[in-house]
């Protein structure tokens, strides 16, 4: 395995399946009364967040601590960067303090790759601009695999035949890109449901322009967050109209099958993309997504820092 996790593309299908398998171990650890193992004792993980995100940062921090790693937090506000300390300086300073991994979230697409050029420390992309959010995709895959009880591992299994609808602001969403790619690597069919203004200019996915067209023919309904700012950029005339065409309204919620999984990466804009209480949806796995976030992040940290990529995978019986 590579020393860094930057995108689902780079992780690849084999890597993706391997992470899901490792996540099973972490899930078992998480079920214990004392959910902690010493696997990463002595390692230090530094969260470097250039964009505010309490939830993701806490998830990574919890994951690191459950593996007995030490954590550091470096929240960079825009102002300190404007004072002249460059991204490169920040990264090199932290590296010099002796950390084993960076968890990076940055508002500019590509920042983790640039950082990878300047340091040999493991880099985990916790979200870069509009581009990629691989750990979100991993937790999404893990959630669906668990909820549907599909045996997907390095030995086989897939989401063949699974119909996924991803709804909302695809253009600005790194979650959309990474999760769509992961679903497709595992064999699912993904349809994007979005107005043209919220789609990337050129893409190869199948698209519908109204949620009603697919709502009765999906197995997984993935809702993306619709930000208020999109209105001022004239991307949608009004959020009310967005909800009417694309939101999960009570009327639509009544029409989806009970088996349909409803997912959201959080945080939710109540009343916009999600106009019902998710706890009233039998298929909502939104809470499980959060729990699984810690589990897959433990798997990622373990695979990058603790699993000894030089060793063979299958049953060594050396005791």
């Amino acid at each position, binding site marked *: 395995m590579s020393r860094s996790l930057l995108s689902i593309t780079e992780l690849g299908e084999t890597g993706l399946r391997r992470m899901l398998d490792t996540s099973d171990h972490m899930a078992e650890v998480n079920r214990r009364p004392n959910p902690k193992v010493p696997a990463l004792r002595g390692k230090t993980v530094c969260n470097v967040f250039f964009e505010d995100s309490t939830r993701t940062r806490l998830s990574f921090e919890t994951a690191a601590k459950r593996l007995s790693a030490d954590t550091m937090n470096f929240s960079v506000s825009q102002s300190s960067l404007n004072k002249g300390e460059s991204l490169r300086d920040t990264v090199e300073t932290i590296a010099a303090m002796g950390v084993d991994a960076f968890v990076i979230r940055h508002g*500019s*697409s590509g920042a983790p790759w*640039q950082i990878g050029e300047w340091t040999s420390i493991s880099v985990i992309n916790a979200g870069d*601009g509009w*581009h990629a959010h691989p750990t979100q995709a991993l937790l999404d895959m893990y959630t669906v695999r668990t909820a549907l009880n599909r045996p997907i591992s390095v030995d086989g299994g897939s989401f063949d035949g699974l119909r996924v609808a991803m709804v909302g602001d695809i253009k600005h969403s790194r979650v959309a890109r990474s999760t769509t790619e992961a679903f497709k690597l595992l064999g699912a069919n993904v349809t994007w449901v979005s107005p043209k203004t919220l789609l*990337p*200019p050129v*893409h190869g996915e199948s698209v519908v322009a109204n949620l009603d067209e697919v709502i009765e023919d999906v197995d997984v309904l993935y809702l993306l967050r619709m930000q208020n700012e999109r209105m001022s950029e004239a991307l949608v005339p009004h959020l009310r109209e967005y909800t009417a065409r694309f939101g999960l309204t009570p009327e639509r919620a009544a029409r989806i099958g009970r088996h349909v999984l409803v997912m959201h990466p959080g945080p939710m804009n109540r009343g916009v993309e999600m106009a019902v209480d998710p706890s009233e949806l039998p298929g909502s796995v939104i809470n499980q997504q959060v729990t699984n976030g810690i589990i897959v992040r433990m798997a990622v940290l373990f695979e990058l820092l603790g699993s000894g990529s030089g060793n063979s995978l299958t049953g060594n019986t050396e005791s």
Partner: protein
Amino acid sequence: MSIMITNGRLIDQTGERLASVRISDGIIIEIGDQLAPDSDNSGAEDLIDAAGLVISPGFVDLHVHLREPGREEAETIETGSRGAALGGFTAVVAMPNTDPTQDSVGVVEFVRQQGKRAGLCDVYPSGSITMGRKGEQLTPFAELANAGVRLFTDDGNGVQDPQLMRRAYEYASDLGVTMAQHCEVESLTAGAVMHEGSCCSHLGLPGWPSLAEELMVHRDIELVRLTGASAHLLHLSTAGSVGLVRAAKADGLPVTAEATPHHISLTDELLASYSALYKVNPPLRTIEDVMAVREGLRDGTIDAIATDHAPHVSETKEMPLDQAPPGMLGLETALGVALAHLDMPLADVVAAMSWKPAAIAGIADRHGRPIALGEPANLTVIDPGEAWEVVPAALASKSRNTPFIGVPLTGRVKHTILHGDITVRDGKAQK
């Protein structure tokens, strides 16, 4: 002391021939294929052996950012001139997006004097079209024209207001100066960092759509048709733009155009590395666009190669893509990139780098002259076949943002002569 360049292959607008050239007091005093050395009486003569090399009129770059005044940390007029001389240029047109802007006689004179003092290249400052390049109020064209300015542009930005641009064209047509446009409709390009197409969608980056350039190309062609003024279109980068200019020329309109070396050699796929070295405005586009721009140069739709040399301090090019400034170096690699990527007769490439841009810049009285008796000795001697690669640390520029690292280049400047002064000898600047 006179200079004798022997046995070179002369290429100029009159044709090609093998000859030697003798220069004295800044003028060509003798040309022939059997010149005897030392035939002037002063005894000492500087000999340059040009066997196997090409002698052409000195190159003219219509589009360079010398950064001085205001951003001397990236480049100065002196270091920029040195890079120009090493690239075979004897004249450059300096873009006005300096600080303060080149919108007054004082700043224009300063730039010209700095160029003269460095003595490596003739620096011709352009003027901005609007005061401070703000797009609101026209610059005093006549004042600046009296101070020798022939080209006006707000480059860095295009003039967004069609009414204002119409006035600029109308006013300029009386004065015999040329408006040059950076064609970009800014409301279509907010936040853009690369070409809008399948690459940017995949990389999750906002893009410059080709339409943003083509809309303004179309607009200014029609304004030329309406006003009778002449226009020069800077750094064309899309197939659509080339097509529009081709049609305009077929209609006999006084429109000229230029293209940069990077737009005939590099594509948007390079942005997959997220390196800001490849961020430029207009952006690197698709292979189809690159091929259309090459075709435009081949059939004369695009008149000139102009580098849009844009130095940036290294730290700024290491910033995340959306924060990094756009722009690439170009002076020292222009010939090497052009000959490596253009399937055109050498004479046509030389034309696009010397007498054609000289005419557009309004300096054809001194640069891009035929190599003939009595003409000013502004010459470039090149080895058109030499293969080389650029080494950023060896560049004369103060900055290092060249996108051509690792790109094989063909054609190297050996000597550059400015008004009879050898500014570059054996590829080394003489001052």
